[in-house]
């Protein structure tokens, strides 16, 4: 931040978080600029700078000569103290402009427990937190990202939301703003919001009324007039090969969470795991072609100097031309010292050859996500993976030389019983046994990471009750007892944090008062354990007469109007309900990419289709 002086910077940890000047940073002369956008990420630099969505938007917006996009991150608590003490506003990295002086401030809704940081950044940026209190000269405060599919808890703070993929619509928003500004801002704030509501994929909450039943459930969310659509549908980019990709990403000085080239190989996933919101909201699958990817990689290596490529997607081992892609990448780039990494792999499409191809240059750890400990439970969640698949995959990995494996699981899934939780431990020990059989050694490092299931909107499980805190903690205790082995590292998530995540994931507009109160009480960086204050959150609920269990543990009725029913992902509620019922019956639904269409509704509804380069798997 250019406005920061040396005195403040020398007093805080990792001052380079705030000073910018990174390779590929874009700094424009604002003389020609007609729309200034702050891309504000509600966490610290190291987390936000890794975010691919923001890299894409930074690149696309800055391509236009009359638009500038600059970055802002949540200052860490020590810097916040300095800013408040010296009465310095939160500014953008590139030009040191206070957030309140930007035209549009866009927040990323990456994670429900970052919402207090959104409020805090607005406050530090000197922007009125309640949307209703903003005036003519205040920026438009907008939000988008994965959690936007239930925007209601933030509806009273955000002027409008971008639903879906923002590459095209964000530009439309900027152009609409410029037009309004050049016309002299006729009609004030109300008018620009009205114009934005006319763009596809934009949800303006102030134009909708929420009507409640006496029991606290929602009767309806209705538009106030016919200008505004009853349901806002997400935007989808049809052809990823022909959309801009950031081949000149910023190269940070300090270490960030994902310090490598991120290559987005496809979007969407049609496996249909029933707990997974991403699988529902990013449909349909759209792949980039191998040729395009190879071209992108070369440009990114030349422009950054990174030597590691991460093949990013929801399920990278499902990329239809994966073997071909990896072979080509290795042939072209291995001698340049560039290595490839794959995030979590699906167990059933893994093989030794793939593993060896991927890690020709450098070996990293392997991660798999069985998600549940028994076959019955896996069928309920539609994760069509068997114990044979897992055994085969880890056997192949161990034979190829890996000795470190990480397995992801969830507890708190619907219909879960104690034997399903025990099943996690059983699988862990089976993996250890396989290692001993293959290598005759005991130096394996097995990490078991167990998160707590949070039911999400727009999934087949959006109606189910979430486990209580006590239920989760009991299951965690059981696992701690079962996984006592030196070869196993057992990680779990704070049950109270997951519980609150559940409240905001499926919450409604009334939660805005709770959120604001929690922030007033000092809640921020809730995702960081040293700053998470569950007692303050409980006080915020009590002060507003709301019960968290209403949002989490309560099972929703099939005909209940859910707080996100006015936001459209293209997937029909009928499909979700069918999948919900199939789950309870333990039935499996196949991937529509390679099997038959399961009629989720996305393709006809949104005029899109699956783009699968369909070569050998």
């Amino acid at each position, binding site marked *: 931040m250019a406005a920061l002086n*040396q*005195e403040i*910077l*020398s*007093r805080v940890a990792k*001052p*380079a978080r*705030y*000073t910018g*000047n*990174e*390779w590929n940073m874009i700094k424009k002369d604002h003389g020609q600029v007609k729309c200034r956008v702050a891309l504000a990420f509600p966490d610290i630099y190291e987390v936000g700078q890794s975010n691919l969505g923001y890299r894409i938007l930074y690149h696309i917006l800055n391509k236009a000569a009359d638009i500038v996009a600059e970055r802002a991150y949540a200052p860490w608590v020590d810097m916040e103290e300095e800013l408040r003490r010296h009465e310095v506003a939160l500014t953008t990295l590139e030009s040191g402009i206070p957030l309140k002086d930007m035209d549009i401030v866009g927040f990323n809704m990456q994670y429900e427990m970052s919402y207090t940081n959104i409020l805090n950044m607005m406050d530090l940026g000197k922007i009125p937190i309640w949307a209703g209190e903003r005036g003519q000269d205040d920026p438009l405060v907008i939000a988008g990202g994965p959690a936007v599919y239930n925007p209601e808890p933030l509806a009273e703070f955000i002027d409008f939301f971008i639903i879906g993929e923002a590459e095209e619509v964000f530009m439309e928003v900027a152009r609409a703003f410029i037009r309004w500004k050049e016309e002299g801002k006729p009609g004030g704030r109300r008018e620009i919001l009205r114009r934005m509501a006319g763009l596809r994929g934009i949800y303006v909450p102030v134009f909708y009324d929420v009507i409640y039943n006496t029991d606290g459930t929602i009767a309806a969310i209705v538009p106030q007039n016919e200008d505004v659509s009853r349901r806002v549908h997400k935007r989808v980019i049809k052809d990823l090969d022909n959309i801009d990709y950031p081949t000149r990403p910023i*190269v940070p*000085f*300090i*270490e960030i969470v994902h310090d490598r080239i991120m290559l987005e190989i496809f979007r969407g996933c049609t496996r249909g795991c029933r707990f997974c919101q991403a699988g529902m909201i990013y449909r349909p699958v759209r792949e980039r072609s191998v040729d395009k990817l190879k071209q992108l990689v070369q440009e990114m*290596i*030349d*422009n*950054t*100097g*990174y*030597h590691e490529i991460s093949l990013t997607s929801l399920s990278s081992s499902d990329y239809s031309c994966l073997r071909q892609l990896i072979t080509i990448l290795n042939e072209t780039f291995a001698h340049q*010292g560039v290595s490839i990494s794959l995030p979590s792999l699906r167990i059933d499409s893994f093989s030794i050859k793939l593993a060896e191809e991927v890690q020709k*240059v*450098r*070996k990293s750890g392997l991660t798999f996500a069985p998600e549940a400990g028994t076959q019955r439970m896996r069928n309920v969640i539609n994760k069509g993976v068997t114990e044979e698949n897992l055994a085969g995959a880890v056997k192949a990995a161990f034979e190829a030389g890996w000795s470190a494996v990480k397995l992801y699981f969830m507890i708190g899934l619907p219909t879960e019983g104690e034997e399903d939780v025990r099943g996690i431990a059983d699988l862990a020990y089976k993996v250890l046994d396989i290692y001993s059989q293959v290598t005759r050694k005991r130096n394996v490092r097995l990490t078991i990471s167990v998160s707590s299931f949070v039911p999400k909107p727009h999934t087949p499980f959006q109606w189910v009750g979430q486990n209580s805190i006590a239920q989760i903690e009991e299951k965690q205790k059981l696992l701690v007892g079962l996984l006592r082995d030196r070869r196993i590292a057992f990680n779990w998530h704070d049950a109270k944090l997951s519980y609150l995540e559940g409240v905001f994931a499926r919450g409604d507009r009334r939660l805005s008062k709770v959120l604001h109160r929690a922030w007033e009480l000092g809640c921020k960086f809730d995702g960081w354990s040293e700053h998470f204050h569950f007692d303050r959150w409980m006080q915020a609920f009590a002060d507003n007469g709301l019960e968290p269990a209403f949002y989490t543990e309560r099972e929703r009725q099939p005909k209940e109007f859910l707080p996100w029913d006015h936001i459209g992902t293209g997937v029909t509620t009928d499909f979700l309900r069918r999948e919900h019922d199939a789950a309870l019956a333990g039935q499996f639904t196949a991937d529509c990419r390679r099997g038959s269409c399961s009629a989720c509704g996305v393709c006809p509804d949104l005029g899109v289709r699956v783009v699968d380069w369909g070569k050998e798997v």
Partner: protein
Amino acid sequence: MKLRMQFTKEEPVRYISHLDLARAFERALRRAKLPLAMSEGFNPHIKVAYASALSVGVTSECEYIDIELCGSMPGELAIAALREQMPVGLSIVRNQIMNENPAALMKVVNMADYTMEVPLSRQVDRMWFQDQVELFLAAPEIMFTRSSPKGNRTLNIRPLIQELRVIQWSTAQVKFALRVHITDKGSVKPLEVLSTLVQRHDVSLQEDKAIIHRTGLWVFRNNNTLSPLDVIK
């Protein structure tokens, strides 16, 4: 072949750490597509070496790096390619192709020069101030405690201070020149010298607002101060 370079760390990157700088340099080298020598084994990395780590918050006009290249590439071509890839705030000043295998920078560099600009919290008499500095330097022992995650270590930093003098004076601030030894048992940081001075003598310096700049890294031998670029062994 080894390429030895002198480079600067300027204001735009004052707050990056030594590790950050090393990473940035490595990426610049890769972008420049120089024929870098790589180490063997599981995790190949490029072969570079530095003289002395520079702290966060300190700029410098004289940092040094040794880069090992395989194959031949004319020095001027390499430097030109690299210059185009250097981030804002890191500039290459001089370079030298080291034809024989030189001794490591870290082994031969044994002296560092700094300037420290420090504001005064109130008006002080100059003569009196300089007397305090003399008194500070007259002490045979100046003890300083360094804390680290592994625990605290107290050491005598006086022998590491070669020279400390006032080179500029105004009513609002003082500018010092500091010369310290770099030994294989460690060195002393400019801020450590300042904070012990402030601790022991009530000199009204606002040391947390000090602006520190490294002005020289030297190979001091036989009473000569040599540039690392000129030293093979």
